[in-house]
């Protein structure tokens, strides 16, 4: 299986030398396409990876709490530990005791993101579906609607905007400067950076791994003295794989912690 068949890049025709993989990696050939109500859908291998990863995660959690016993067996213990990592470690820590009612959403968010991120280093998949911009956008959109809904429901529509846009304890003339900044920061930048942080980390990590892997193959097959650098490229690919694992879990954790921070900020009464 040659590297050219596996990695996607815009190679000029002829012999261009090293042709690095590009963002076309995230636009593979669709396996099936169909149109529904004028919207074009395509099933690609990224879709299949997303479905498989999510199904795996859902199956694990469902089977962990089926027939729960007072003294848990190992699968139940693992499921409960995983859920309590988010429920106690994040929801209760950041939001407080009222945060426990949002723990199911936060846990689902965390495990969805982490499982799909980790698909970036699993062999035969090796592409994180969260590297397609649509998925982080939808997740950030749900969080955005959620924390605004919580704030408006808890404080009322007027007081919520007043507390956010006109923070107390500021001398009156400075509100001209502060209010647009606060508005942009809370209502525009928060969902945007939430989505882009996850997307950009997954895109960059995938491209790094692909470039080191393609570089290793190219350096081995090029046939001149450059072959001595091929083990360096391979070592970098291995090191970056472990680093990517850290980054993937960390980005999922940061997404969930930021979501809880926004929810906690929306819930507090000034």
């Amino acid at each position, binding site marked *: 299986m040659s590297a050219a068949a596996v990695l996607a890049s815009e190679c000029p025709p002829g012999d261009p030398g090293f042709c690095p993989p*590009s*963002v076309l990696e995230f636009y593979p050939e669709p396996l099936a396409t169909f149109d529904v109500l004028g919207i074009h859908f395509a099933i690609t291998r990224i879709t299949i990876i997303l479905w498989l990863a999510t199904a795996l995660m859902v199956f694990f959690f469902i089977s962990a709490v089926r027939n729960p016993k007072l003294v848990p067996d190992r699968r139940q213990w693992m499921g409960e530990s995983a859920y309590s990592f988010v429920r106690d470690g994040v929801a209760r*820590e*950041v939001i407080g005791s009222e945060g426990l009612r949002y723990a199911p959403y936060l846990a689902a968010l965390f495990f969805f993101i982490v499982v799909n991120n980790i698909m970036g280093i699993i062999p035969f998949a090796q592409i994180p579906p969260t590297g397609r911009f649509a998925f982080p956008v939808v997740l950030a959109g749900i969080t955005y609607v959620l924390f605004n809904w919580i704030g408006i429901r808890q404080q009322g529509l007027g007081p919520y905007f007043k507390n956010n846009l006109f923070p107390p304890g500021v001398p009156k003339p400075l509100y001209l400067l502060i209010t647009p900044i606060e508005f942009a920061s809370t209502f525009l930048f928060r969902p945007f*950076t939430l989505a*882009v*942080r996850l*997307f*950009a*980390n997954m*895109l*960059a990590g995938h*491209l790094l791994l692909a470039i080191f892997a393609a570089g290793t193959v190219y350096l081995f097959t090029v046939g001149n003295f450059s072959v001595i650098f091929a083990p360096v490229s391979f070592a970098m690919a291995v090191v970056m794989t472990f680093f990517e694992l850290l980054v993937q879990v*960390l*980005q999922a*954790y*940061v997404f969930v*912690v*930021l979501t809880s921070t926004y929810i906690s900020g929306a819930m507090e009464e000034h």
Partner: protein
Amino acid sequence: MSVLAELTGNVGTMGYGLAAIGPGIGVGIVFAAYIQATARQPESAGLTRTYLFLGFALSEALAILGFVVPFIIT
């Protein structure tokens, strides 16, 4: 008007190099604060670990953005 100075080649790479300055310093500051706080009061290490990861990811986000934007603006 004639061109006085010109930059050719992969400007995106240069953009990433410039973009990595700030987050590099920022991540260093975050970890330095965590190390100092833990050195002063080791029992607080668990409490501040959440802020460590949060600060690291928020600073790193800008460097990652600098890496990725040239790919998107193909």
